[in-house]
């Protein structure tokens, strides 16, 4: 109950207290229901790991010298990071809109950039916490080596930022829960399942390989995985530029939406 007190903002400049408070509120919001927002996705990822590793190990050829189960783990971690970053910002916004309590934030002097930053950082942290949770639990079952930790962290940050931003766009745009569910079911789920989490796209027929390369999720998963094994389907620099570029574009769109008051201020 007292986690509010853990974070001390007494010495903070008043101008920073506003966005800091919003971030703190967003973090507490998911942390209070961590069973649903952190534990549940960790369990889900582990179920995938258990089932797919059991069924597919030995049947699917991924990279040379990398066992399937090991290959699967980074993909599952990244997929969960992305999905949870999206879920955090989008569900917080749609709930506040439907409940009507977003007005409490809209009445404040917070700038559109501060609003964006608070929701973005909360989404990133939720994504990372879930990712870390899966990593820690998976360590019990499988020996995981990380070749390039910097790459792993960079992709985790950029990927969760990208999806957190996309979640803000979805949250601003959607007026009802079913519209938000459509985002989840028709965009996020297909893109994340068809991104090469469960297979290397080199095992696909050429047409599907090409198609996979149009999926931004593919580059996030591949780049993240590259950090673990030092190899991937494409160069990590290509992935980095695509993911980084996509984030910048979405961030600019989001800031423009927020500045214009699109859907939030009539």
């Amino acid at each position, binding site marked *: 109950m007292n986690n509010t007190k853990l974070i001390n903002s007494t010495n903070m400049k008043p101008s920073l207290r*506003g966005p800091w*408070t919003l971030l703190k509120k967003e973090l507490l*919001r998911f942390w209070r229901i961590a069973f649903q927002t952190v534990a549940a996705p960790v369990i889900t990822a582990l179920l995938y790991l258990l089932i797919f590793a059991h069924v597919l190990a030995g049947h699917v050829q991924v990279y040379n010298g990398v066992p399937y189960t090991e290959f699967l783990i980074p993909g599952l971690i990244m997929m969960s990071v992305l999905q949870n970053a999206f879920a955090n910002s989008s569900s917080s916004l749609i709930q506040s809109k439907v*409940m009507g*309590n977003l007005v*409490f934030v809209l009445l*404040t*002097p917070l*700038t559109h950039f501060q609003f964006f930053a608070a929701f973005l950082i909360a989404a990133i942290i939720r994504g990372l916490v879930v990712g870390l949770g899966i990593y820690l639990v998976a360590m019990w079952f499988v020996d995981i080596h990380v070749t390039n930790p910097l790459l792993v962290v960079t992709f985790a940050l950029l990927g969760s930022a990208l999806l957190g931003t996309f979640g803000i766009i979805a949250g601003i745009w959607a007026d009802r829960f079913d519209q938000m569910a459509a985002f989840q079911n028709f965009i996020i789920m297909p893109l994340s399942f068809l991104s090469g989490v469960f297979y290397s796209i080199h095992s696909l027929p050429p047409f599907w390989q090409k198609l996979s390369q149009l999926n931004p999720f593919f580059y996030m998963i591949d780049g993240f995985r590259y950090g673990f094994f030092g190899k991937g389907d494409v160069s990590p620099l290509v992935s980095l530029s695509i993911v980084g570029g996509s984030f910048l574009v979405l961030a600019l769109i989001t800031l423009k939406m927020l500045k214009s008051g699109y859907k939030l*201020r009539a």
Partner: protein
Amino acid sequence: MNPAIKINGVHKNFGSLHALKGIDLTIEQGEFFALLGPNGAGKSTLISILAGLIKPTAGDISVMGFDVVNQYQQARQLLGVVPQELVFDPFFNVREMLRFQAGYFGRGKENDAWVDEILEGLGLADKAHTNMRKLSGGMKRRALIAQALAHKPPVIVLDEPTAGVDVELRQMLWEFIKNLNNQGHTIILTTHYLEEAEALCSRVGMMKQGEIVALDSTANLLNKFAGKKLRLTLGDVTLPANIQSLLRKQEKGIFTFALNDMAQIELVLAALRAVNIKVLDMQLSEADLEDVFLSLVGKAS
């Protein structure tokens, strides 16, 4: 000294609906001002523009000299708005919500004493650790008001704060708000309860179909539009034509006349005598805002 609120030629169109048709209004610092009008008159639209929740189609509003669009940070810092709808955040308890709300405005621990004062003043102290979800309707309304006050704004706007609220809370609320007004806070109130406006507010603006149709001190409005109210029980009769213009209301044989001065009593009674209408009962009272409201706003709609 800048006025608390200055509204300049504000228009708002929602598609083809012209919701506000050029509102001009200045509210000085320290005033207790009532904005009255029937549903759909545009009060809430005006308040939403003031609060930055919607944008004006034309015109501008400033809060203590700061434009609500171009200098929104300063303007909102000075403004506390109680929304009309009973909204709440189900994740937090009352005290947490108030701390957050103050925090958004840059206030930190130094503000805690004020938060306690609000909780005390609004009778929320024993609910401070109760989750918002678990509060009763009346308690949620108090929390909503508390949230608007959390950053101690000099200008406070209450949009229908007593809708669906019991008498006890209304009295407690007005006591608290009157205190704030005495300490120098400017209060702007919209309400359906005209007796509240009459008892509390020194100045009244009345809106109708997107326009301000009356703007004056409460006392002047009462004098100007209806000095005295004469209620006569006459039964099922037809009034003589020469006193029809004084009639305000007719209900089940009870006729209410609005009189400008006492001499008109004789005029009414003489007219009734002339056509042999018998007065069964008679009551004379001071006019209230409701009479003003009805004569300005009610009849045409």
